[in-house]
């Protein structure tokens, strides 16, 4: 397993050893959708997505 850091909340995220750049991962703590930018070293960035309307 590889470990990446969430760019938003700094949580440690466990990634499969064979994870590929471009794969989408979800941060277990802040539910942010993240994109694997690089694997050596592991770098994660906010995946481009529009925020759902919360309906209020």
């Amino acid at each position, binding site marked *: 397993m590889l470990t990446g850091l969430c*760019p*938003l*909340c*700094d*949580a440690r995220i466990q990634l499969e050893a064979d994870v590929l750049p471009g794969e989408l991962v979800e941060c277990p*703590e*802040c*539910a*942010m*959708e993240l994109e694997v930018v690089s694997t050596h070293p592991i770098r994660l960035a906010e995946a481009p997505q529009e*925020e*759902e309307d*919360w309906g209020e």
Partner: protein
Amino acid sequence: MAERRVSIVGGSGYTGGELLRLLLFHPRVTLVQVTSERFAGKPVYRVHPNLRGVTQARFCSLAELEPCDTLFLCLPHGKSMEQMPRFQRLAGNIIDLSGDFRLATPEAYQKWYGRPHLYPELLGEFVYGIPELYRRNIQQARYVSGAGCNATAVILALYPLFQQQLVYPERTVVEVKGGSSEGGNSPSEASHHPERNGVVRSYKPTGHRHIGEIEQTLGHPVHLSATALGIVRGILATCHVFLKQPLDEKSIWRIYRNAYGSEPFIRMVKERKGIYRLPEPKLLVGSNFCDIGFERDAGGNRLVVISAMDNLMKGAAGQAVQAFNIMHRFPETLGLEFPGLHPV
């Protein structure tokens, strides 16, 4: 870890009933007695109908109280201290859920409870019962005083920021929103359903008694208002603090993760998606969780910290059992595993 023989003094109120529910299912507790002057001799489910068929236990009067290992006191403020010497003779450990031994000085007690303290010399013997802040003291303690429900919600939300002096304390503004069970089970004009249902009632815009405990623990008073809502259980504390230095989201996460990351009963809840993105008290009904979230105000230096809990659980009976587990080296979550319900 032998079983503990435990009794509840004042078991007919909502807090006493919740404690009874937890202790009846606690694997290391033998429940000896539950006192109630008004219902002495009656079965407990007469007052706590959720316990129908669960127990045949009956209330006894305070006069019949026998020695035991641990006494939980659920008496009204003022009644606890009145008989404390007698309770000390009856049990090696005491957990008092009233406000009588929360404040460290007789002056503070006079100020917030409006009467002189009868046993000021005992105040130092009680540890303030918030495990996340005082776990080591509780481990050594003979006597623990349960913290107030609103105080617990505000203290847990703000303690990491105040401890590291990251905010201007005197500018802190908090509004706690709570339910009708905080008022206890005696009816009044104001709790009559047609008057009470669906309200958004500013019942304590200022002068809420829990400010005393908050000031004592955070080192500063906070501007606190309390609003009652149309729910029965649940507290949501919305805390407005003003940062001395700008902090990005990641550092705020880090501050709270360092403070509470390994706590069994605190969950950080701040999510970008889903229905429940920030703490929601209704999800915590019956559980011992305190959920904490936050949001930075992009425009300035305001940080809004939000905490939620069940006032009868983490705000009273649940936290008392958590302290009980710590005092007797039981696993801290023992008997407190119920995760809450959804939908509810």
